[in-house]
């Protein structure tokens, strides 16, 4: 069975600062490849600046890649420009739940309008009656009481907004749901509710998830496999168990050690600040300089993501 989503050699490069010769090239995403099978939940972890938000937008076809292929159900959806993807029939199959519920609502749209809009636009020909039924059903699925539907965003609590956020993304029953830090802005008690909800929805609707987060403890709860990114590149991928119990990349190890309460040793710590993502040297490993290990080879040859000898893939010359 072919994968639902296949991303190959995806890159997004921005031109920054100045024009012409003085402009730098910001490598937000640099030659990454991964795939998601039907019904699978893949976690994408990394810290700020690693490119995960850009990956979200590339896969969701909100922006166009500079290079590489985004294949959905066997079709190259990168061929349709982002500007026109809104009218493509495949738009309904990939939806996104964004992080900040406050910013992602039109303040003049009621919860009902927000959930109904994708149904109206992506499922043309539904009658108003049919729409109302489907909005009610979706609200029920996410545990949103019907009497909250006429409310405006500023009349809803954080947890209620999170539910509306999810409702409008699943209103057209997408096959792939991308979750971009869906619980980061929520209190921990509300987060627990939403995480349960997301797990239940996946089981009930059979969706695949791309779950993007910086919180490893949360990602662990909902995902089967993980992809770890750093400065635009994938440094390690594997099952959740593999990554947590036997991280192979120094960055992954530092990430896990940094979780509060984790029993670990400080030799894993990274020093200094990340190198600049603008015009990075293609021959130097992105972690070089901060990495507790660091050999000559690390600044002469960019390590490639590969699995050697059966262990999960890692991009490091001297994996642990």
């Amino acid at each position, binding site marked *: 069975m072919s994968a639902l989503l296949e991303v190959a050699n995806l890159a997004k490069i921005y031109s920054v600062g100045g024009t012409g010769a003085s402009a730098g090239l910001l490598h937000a995403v640099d030659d990454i490849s991964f795939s998601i099978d039907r019904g699978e939940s893949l976690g994408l972890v990394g*810290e*700020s600046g690693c490119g995960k938000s850009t990956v979200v937008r590339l896969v969701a076809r909100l922006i166009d890649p500079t290079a590489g292929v985004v294949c959905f159900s066997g079709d190259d959806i990168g061929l349709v420009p982002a500007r026109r993807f809104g009218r493509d029939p495949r738009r309904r199959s990939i939806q996104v739940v964004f992080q900040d519920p406050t910013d992602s609502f039109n303040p003049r749209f009621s919860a009902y309008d927000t959930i109904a809009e994708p149904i109206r636009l992506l499922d043309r020909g539904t009658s108003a009656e049919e729409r109302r039924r489907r909005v009610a059903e979706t609200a029920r699925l996410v545990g949103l009481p019907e009497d909250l539907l006429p409310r405006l965003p500023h009349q809803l*609590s*954080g*947890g209620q907004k999170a539910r509306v956020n999810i409702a409008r993304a699943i209103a057209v029953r997408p096959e792939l749901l991308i979750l971009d830090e869906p619980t980061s802005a929520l*209190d*921990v*008690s*509300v*987060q*627990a*509710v939403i*995480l*349960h909800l997301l*797990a239940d929805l996946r089981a009930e609707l059979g969706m695949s998830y791309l779950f993007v987060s*910086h*919180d*490893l*403890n*949360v990602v*662990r*709860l*909902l995902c089967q496999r993980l992809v770890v990114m750093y400065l635009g590149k994938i440094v390690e991928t594997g099952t959740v168990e593999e990554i*947590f119990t036997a991280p192979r990349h120094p960055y992954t190890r*530092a*990430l896990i*050690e*940094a*979780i*509060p*309460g*984790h029993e670990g040793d400080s030799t894993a*710590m*990274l020093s*200094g*600040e990340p190198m600049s993502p603008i015009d990075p040297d293609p021959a130097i490993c992105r972690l070089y300089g901060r990495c507790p290990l660091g050999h000559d080879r690390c600044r002469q040859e960019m390590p490639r993501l590969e699995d050697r000898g059966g262990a999960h893939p890692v991009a490091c010359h001297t994996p642990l």
Partner: protein
Amino acid sequence: MALLEVENLAIEFRTRGGTVHALENVGLSVDSGEIVGVVGESGSGKSVSAFAVMGILDPAARVTAGRIEFDGTDILTAGERKLRKMRGRDMAMVFQNARGALNPIRTIGQQIADVLRCHKFGDRGAIGDQVVAALKTVRIPDPETRAGAYPYELSGGMCQRVGIALAMACQPRLLIADEPTTGLDVTTQSTIMDLIRDLVRANRKAAILITHDLLLAEEYCDRIVVMHAGHVVETASTAALFAAPRHPYTAALIASTPRQDTRLAALRPIAGSIPDLRADLPPCRFAARCPRRIERCVNEPLPRIAADGDAGHVTACWRPL
């Protein structure tokens, strides 16, 4: 004799929607050399408590009861002049939005120098050296050059280090850190928290860490004060709190916080939501959400019950676990 003693503090805000009873009967104490964590969700009143200690409450706030004593000074009755002398010198604060707390049009060196000069701290002639020394204590590399940098040139983590440098510049006895690492990467978070802990321990200072992250408090605090909807529900040493939480809310909070080994099924959400603080509230503000609620909870004022054998572990509950 505790360095900071807050007793029976009650604060309300007058808003157009009614009076918000933000804090009621809030008490905590901090000794020199210890780090006390104030843990709670949004709306629990933890930041308001910190602002009250610093004397920087919003003008709409009214302190209706209570006492705040810092190093012998009564904060609530001391005049603004006295408080201004104390802020930065005896007690200081590190804020959540690190970049927002810095003046964008002054270099970080100038800002640290401002604090030193304002409190006439140290040798006037050697301010430049003092600034570099301050940057060194927060482990900013290349401090001589960095002193001339503007906040926009620095990363979030670096800005927070500068924030800590500003707070510690005059060697205050109490440091209050209000969600100092929220919004920072987890690798940066651990280095910043390690830095705060090292600085506090090295100089026998007292610190209050305000956070919604239970695991962070567990790792860095000696004692923890748990707040819910403007009440202190439980106070205990960190070890005792996590080994045997006594208030139902504390237990529920712990149960809804994902740890490394938590399974999704074991993650328990807390029923209900924070009550509206403008409404008429029962004596226990958690009662509506509590599975152990009894008649006394909504009729009688809350008790403070110490655990057997541990006088420092106090719970405001009629049916502690």
